[in-house]
């Protein structure tokens, strides 16, 4: 449980860390949408270059970033296998056949792209949380959602809930370790090979964890109440987010990069450069 990389902040100083959280959140949104639009290897290659640049700029050790992929290994393998086995391609793409298993060339391409997509989807947001403190992140979300206040969406409350939830993740992990140890001391076995037994063995951990979450929530509500917390009304901020030159630069770069990807993918200007002519354009 200790190596959950998602939602983890990596405290170093870098350009990426100093960018305005709003810019980073928007960039990640654009990035995610882009991933769903593009489906050619050449565009994925561009995406990989872009990600590498982001990682290098962020001063987060690349190995640490790769570790965030560890928890989706099974998902990726599973997706690749399913796509490979059940893909129905054209007969002339058939590479290999045995009994009812048919492997198509297009299936290999498709499954590889699927795997890349999943990995890109994880790494991008991970870079956001690596370079942005939870506080900055929720600040950014609150400011970005601000227009929704017009239609009475409780934006401030949503942001507050988010920041509290993020803040409590490590606390709950620690609490869970403690409860687990206490039940282990009473002879509980959490390492059973049988997956059902293992699920049931977690009940004595999860129930105390829920109970203590409610207790914590109550205590926290009291503490906030006693310091006169009344929600968003009349509340000012200590640190007001301001866009600076580098933020505008980042937005420009992001727009340019987005355009690049779409160009690579959809081959907008075949008269200028025809990517489709490249032998490995698939």
């Amino acid at each position, binding site marked *: 449980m200790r190596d959950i990389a998602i939602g983890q902040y990596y405290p170093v100083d870098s350009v990426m860390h100093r960018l305005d959280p709003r810019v980073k959140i928007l960039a990640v949104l654009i990035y995610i949408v882009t991933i769903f639009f593009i489906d050619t290897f050449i565009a994925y290659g561009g995406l990989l270059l872009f990600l590498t640049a982001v990682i290098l700029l962020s001063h987060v050790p690349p190995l640490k970033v790769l570790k965030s992929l560890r928890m989706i290994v099974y998902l990726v393998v599973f997706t690749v296998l399913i796509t490979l086995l059940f893909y129905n391609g054209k007969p002339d793409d058939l590479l290999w056949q045995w009994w009812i298993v048919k492997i198509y060339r297009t299936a290999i391409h498709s499954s590889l792209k699927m795997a890349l997509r999943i990995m890109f989807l994880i790494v991008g947001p991970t870079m956001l949380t690596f370079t942005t403190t939870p506080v900055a992140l929720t600040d950014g979300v609150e400011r970005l959602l601000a227009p929704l206040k017009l239609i009475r969406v409780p934006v401030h409350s949503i942001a507050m809930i988010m920041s509290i939830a993020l803040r409590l993740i490590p606390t709950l992990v620690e609490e869970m370790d*403690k*409860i687990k*140890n*206490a*039940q*282990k*001391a*009473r*002879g*509980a*076995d959490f390492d059973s090979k049988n997956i059902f037994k293992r699920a049931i063995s977690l*009940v*004595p*951990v999860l*129930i*105390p964890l829920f*109970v*203590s979450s409610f207790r914590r929530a109550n205590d926290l509500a009291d503490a906030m109440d006693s310091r006169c917390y009344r929600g968003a009304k009349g509340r000012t901020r200590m640190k007001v987010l301001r866009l600076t030159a580098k933020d505008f630069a980042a937005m420009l770069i992001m727009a340019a990069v987005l355009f690049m990807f779409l160009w690579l993918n959809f081959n907008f200007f075949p008269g200028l450069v025809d990517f489709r002519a490249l032998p490995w354009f698939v």
Partner: protein
Amino acid sequence: MPVEIRGLSYDYDQKTKFQKRALFDIGFTVRDGDFLGIVGHTGSGKSTLVTHFNALNRVQQGTVVVDGVDLSQKFDYKALRAKVGMVFQYPEYQLFDETVYKDVAFGPKNLGLDEREIAVRVEAAIRMVGLDYDAVKERSPFELSGGQMRRAAIAGVLAMRPEILILDEPTAGLDPRGKREVMRLIQGFRAMCKIIVMISHNMDEVAANCSRIIVMNEGRVYGDYAPEELFHNEELLSALRIDMPAVCTLTRRLNERGFSLPEDTLDEAVLLERLVGAVRAKRGGGHA
């Protein structure tokens, strides 16, 4: 049933950037009949040390031998945890089952005992912590009061009939009366458990109950003392930044005000008796 610790060192987050040594070359032996108090400041390694006794922390360097079983080798976890019971800080936070009976039965059940033996042990354990068995057995542990919950949780450990009982701050967060009652119960456990180890920040409790005290400081054993030896030594206490128990402070204050009581007891009753004697002697002298 001794616990022998030799050259025990322990690192947190071993082989990572955050690696931090928590225990440095610890060595001592706990013998049958010991009521061992472990004291020291927060972060001195007390909890890390005791969680080695039932292998919640694996031995990294050195050896821990519990009743002849070397914990740095392969061994039977369940047998060890049946032998070494551990009551964690705020144990009431680990209650989970529908009824107090079922919760207390969790440990014995994990040991694979049969229903009849479990029933006998659960009833005995609940009575041992001073709860009314018939009144609480079918109640949800979450309906109990704070003090009762703590007792129910302690019963959950006792029901495993441990020969070594480890208690981490058993009275933390209780009111003074609750503290006294829990300590009185723990004294009663000595009939069942050959060794009791208690971590505590409350020097009054340590002074009144422990037969031996180990002082931890920054991951090392600073010293191993008899209670009288430690608590009447003011220089030692201030060097270790440990509070003096109320009994010793009172004795000193009284002596500053003209009494000459011997500074060798940690027992409130003995002090009171001597004080009464001294006052009587003074009055007697005054009248004469």
